[in-house]
């Protein structure tokens, strides 16, 4: 693979130590709240499902999509998990992925974990969820509406998450570029990545809704009736791909 991967995982040393610590504390508090609130969406019965969704996010972050010749990005998945499993469980999923990537794969710095969780797991998921919630009427009306909703939510989530980076950089940026330069670079890049994120999120949500609409959290009205496993129609490749 000769392309450059434009990812959003910050390394150590991009923001200074106090900023890292502040965002670390904010993230720990918020993820603690998410762990409590996720219980409402997710009794112990369904924790294995959340585990597999997290494994899915982990695998999906390894799939690169092209932006321009020579540059590729990978999915952040904030809006995707918010729409599929809800914001609280979604925040937990992305946080776990980021922590594991940082501890076991040296992807994203240890001290940058707080800022990375803040940008991708908190801002990313909740902005995606807020947009999707605001457009829920449209999403429920038709398949096309759902796809448009997923695209817009993912695009906005990516751009706003990159603004989180700009905010942290403005507070405690430790490099020589001005905030204006960083703002232009980050928002420019992430508007492009956001289009890719939007297309993939929309197609993924569309594909899931076509086969198992009961799995899409955004479309749920009442608590889901327990459904026997393996009853989903057509697990074959041909019907969804």
């Amino acid at each position, binding site marked *: 693979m000769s392309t*450059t*991967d434009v*990812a959003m995982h910050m*390394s*150590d*040393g991009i923001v*200074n*130590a106090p900023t*890292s*610590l502040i965002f670390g504390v904010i993230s720990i508090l918020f993820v603690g709240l998410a*762990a409590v609130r996720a*219980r409402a969406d997710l009794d*112990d019965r*369904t*924790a*294995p*499902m*959340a*585990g*597999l*969704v*997290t*494994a*899915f996010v*982990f*695998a999906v972050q*390894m*799939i690169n999509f*092209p932006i*321009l*010749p020579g540059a590729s990005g990978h999915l952040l998945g904030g809006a995707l998990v918010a729409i599929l499993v809800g914001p609280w469980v979604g925040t937990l999923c992305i*946080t*776990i992925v980021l922590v*594991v990537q940082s*501890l*076991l*794969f*040296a*992807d994203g*710095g*240890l*001290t*940058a974990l707080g800022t990375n969780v803040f940008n991708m797991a908190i801002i990313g998921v909740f902005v995606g969820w807020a947009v999707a919630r605001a457009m829920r009427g449209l999403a429920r009306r038709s398949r096309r509406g759902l796809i448009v909703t997923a695209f817009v939510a993912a695009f906005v989530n990516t751009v706003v998450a990159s603004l989180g980076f700009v905010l942290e950089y403005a507070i405690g940026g*430790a*490099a*020589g*570029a001005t905030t204006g330069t960083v703002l232009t670079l980050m928002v420019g890049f992430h508007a*492009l990545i956001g289009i890719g994120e939007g*297309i*993939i999120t929309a*197609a993924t*949500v569309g*594909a*899931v809704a076509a*086969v198992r609409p009961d*799995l899409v959290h955004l479309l749920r009205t009442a608590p889901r009736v327990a459904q026997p496993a*393996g009853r989903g129609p057509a*697990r074959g490749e041909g019907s*969804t*791909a």
Partner: protein
Amino acid sequence: MGAGHSHPLYLEGSSVVHRLPAEVKIVAAFLTVLCVVATPREAFWAFGGYLLLLAAVWAAARIPPGWMARRALIEAPFVVLAVLLPFTGPDPRFEWAGLSLSHAGTLGAWNILAKGTLGVLTSLTLAATTPMRDLLLGLQRLRVPALVLTIATLMLRYADVIAGEARRMRLARIARGHDPRFLWQAGATARGIGSLFIRSYERGERVHLAMLSRGWTGTMPTTGAPATVRSQWLVALALPLVAAALAVTGMMTT
């Protein structure tokens, strides 16, 4: 389903560093990187000191430096960002090898490069000496909520399975002539991700039923790992202590 319970960055061993409890190593690594990040960028010698410190840990853990160096290339994407800084940074500028470089931008690039590299090397040292199940036990002892741990455990067990499935789907696309270069060609990738989600979720439902039939009650059973003793904390915290001494000296001298 032959997914091992190890991970690609783990280096089998039984050294002092390998035998330390995971929570001790996580805390020590975090504090060390914090010291690195807090060091002023102009204290060039301090960063050499950190590298020597890590090299001492590698020697104790019997990790060959070459093994480390190859894996440190993970960092390459950040280097791309750092390389831009000397050109985009503000005035004053200076001439070097015919290029006009920004003074602040070059210092900023050095800052990201040095701290980012030391951060990656520290994380790699932690990953190389800590198997996955120890890491989960360590997180449990650091008071991570049980629900989060359950999700993380299952995620780690199945990440290889799902990633393998994603890799096979990608190979299948390539074998059928899929060669995307532009954003609007992402459709096939996206539909693949959709079916990957459905397969993951349905596997989750099957795993859940399998766990229930084996008597799962909602919490992970604890294993009989030995408790951490104070001397192990003292051994591991020697690393951030030296790092803190370097950071403080760095702050005083610049």
